[in-house]
């Protein structure tokens, strides 16, 4: 989306709203396409978590890098990934960002600093660490953001990365989307320590924020990222958020209580943002026009993907290694 910084608070909030709604509408469309069999494989939706990447990305520029996880659609879109390439990739077309080789769990565009969603829990963390090391070694003020869930707290590599990032004062933001679920199990049955405890163990400042309040995420992330750019070392930003859908599409979530599921709508970051916009006196027609414009862009992306050719097997097989020169 690569939004221009907006000074007017209403314009700024509208921009954040548009960012979240783009993710929501793209994922709602993917959900329907998946149900209709037009999206193969596994998809993991981030519906309910949109405020986190949108709030963080408001402080990121093109030179900054992010690495993501299996629930990465929002991270990629908020970083500015092309919507046509995004849909075409997830629908398995040659015009996809990864030419149909990665799919939902591997959407990436390194040219805009999106180092990939990832199918392995925690694996984006050391990649982000290396990217942060590159930024520091090259002497730029770019920062690297690792998006991970609370399920990754139990992965050993997180602990390695917290240590090295702190030891070397790397410009790395550990952006945790804490939705309380580690796949099909509540995280409090899997982790003894909290992320706050872990951050403290490595002397990294930890900030906790309501991850469903996009303004709060934006403000907290802006402070963390400013600290990274000053060379103050890593920050942990823990965003309490809500996973509305299952671990993957098709997961019936029998393990969640009906009460919990019934209460999810109240936490919706987009509805909250819309209410805030109404408080600020923004006309409802203006807000609705955003949804309509996104809908047109999404439908165009889906139509473009449907019309795109299937990927070439020969081209895929030729891309395992870089072709020799000459």
């Amino acid at each position: 989306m690569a939004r221009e910084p907006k000074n007017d608070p209403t314009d700024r909030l509208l921009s954040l709203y548009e960012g979240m709604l783009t993710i929501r509408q793209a994922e709602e469309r993917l959900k329907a396409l998946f149900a209709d069999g037009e999206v193969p494989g596994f998809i993991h939706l981030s519906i309910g978590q949109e405020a986190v990447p949108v709030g963080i990305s408001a402080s990121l520029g093109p030179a900054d890098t992010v690495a993501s996880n299996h629930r990465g659609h929002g991270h990629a879109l908020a970083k500015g990934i092309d919507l046509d390439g995004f849909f075409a990739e997830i629908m398995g077309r040659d015009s996809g960002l990864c030419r149909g080789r990665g799919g939902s769990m591997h959407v990436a565009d390194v040219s805009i600093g999106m180092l990939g969603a990832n199918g392995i829990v925690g694996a984006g963390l050391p990649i982000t660490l290396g990217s942060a090391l590159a930024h520091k070694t090259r002497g730029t003020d770019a920062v690297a953001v690792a998006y991970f869930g609370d399920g990754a707290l139990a992965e050993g590599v997180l602990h390695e990365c917290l240590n090295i990032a702190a030891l070397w004062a790397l410009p790395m933001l550990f952006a945790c989307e804490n939705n309380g679920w580690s796949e099909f199990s509540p995280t409090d049955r899997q982790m003894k320590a909290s992320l706050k405890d872990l951050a403290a163990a490595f002397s990294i400042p930890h900030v906790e924020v309501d991850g469903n309040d996009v303004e709060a995420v934006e403000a907290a992330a802006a402070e963390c990222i400013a600290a990274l750019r000053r060379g103050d070392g890593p920050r942990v930003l823990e965003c309490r958020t809500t996973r509305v859908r299952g671990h993957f599409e098709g997961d019936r979530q029998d393990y969640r209580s009906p009460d919990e599921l019934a209460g999810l709508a109240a936490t919706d970051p987009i509805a909250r943002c819309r209410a805030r916009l109404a408080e600020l006196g923004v006309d409802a027609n203006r807000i609705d026009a955003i949804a309509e414009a996104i809908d047109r862009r999404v439908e165009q992306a889906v139509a473009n993907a449907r019309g795109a050719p299937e990927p070439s097997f020969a081209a895929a097989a030729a891309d395992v290694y870089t072709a020799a020169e000459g």
Partner: protein
Amino acid sequence: MVETRYGKAINQALHDALAADPSVILFGEDVGEAGGPFKATRGLQEAFGAERVRDTPISEAAIAGMAVGAALSGLKPVAEIMFMDFVTLAMDQLVNQAAKARFMFGGRNSVPMVLRTPHGGGLSAGPQHSQCLEAWLAHIPGLKVVCPATPADAYGLLRAAIDDPDPVVVVENKALYALKGEIDDSPAAVPIGRARIARPGRDATVVTYGAALHTALQAADALAGDGVDVEVIDLRSLQPWDEAAVLASLSRTHRLVVLHEAVEAFGIGAEIAARMADVGFDELDAPIVRVGAPFMPVPFAGALEKAYLPAAADVVAAVRRTLE
């Protein structure tokens, strides 16, 4: 030509690469101030600074992952894993990330990283510090694997690996670090994927790599005394490997032995034997014979390890089998 040691040649290659390209950085356990567990990086931190030659904590997964992330962000990282046995702790980043990133990202990016790691026995280092695990990595599409046997190749293959746009694992051999050999005054990179005829011969071919090259050459000397003229091929690169060079040698000698220090079963030798049994079938005058370590962990005690490691006598016996 000057004489140098295998470990010194690695050091020189790293020095020259750091001097040639500011995007090259080194990191690993004790590679900086301590100069590396086998002294391969001695003096490099003094020469290039602690920002470019970094000591890491004992965190192999993070070391390998950092190499991937740094390579995707404009650097050419050369990471070290202290013993090849420890790549077990870095496998997700090597296998799922480094190897697949180029393919998964639609061929739009490569991952120009190098991972150096020593394998091999002979030092009574025991079951967790002696393994030859290169076949695991050669089995992964997207990784390249090289294994130098001489000081000249230790230099040249490492320079080629650092220049390569894709991830390359450089497998060194602990028992070779002190090996002396000739190297050019101004050495060049050795192209990845090309084998070398280490000793020409007419009667049988022994294909090998790494420290086992020297075992093969001893065996060839012993057989020469009996009038058997053995050709020894040093593969140098395992993935990709030089199928054409092996087939050409087989076409001259019509007999093939494949030797490596790694466990024989399901190894590099099995791949070479299978390919030659296919594309070289008409050239074969005898069954292809493999020589490798037995199917057991590398033992500690000197007497046990000596019995475990493939010896020149084993190669002599294998060549004789092909001549029966």
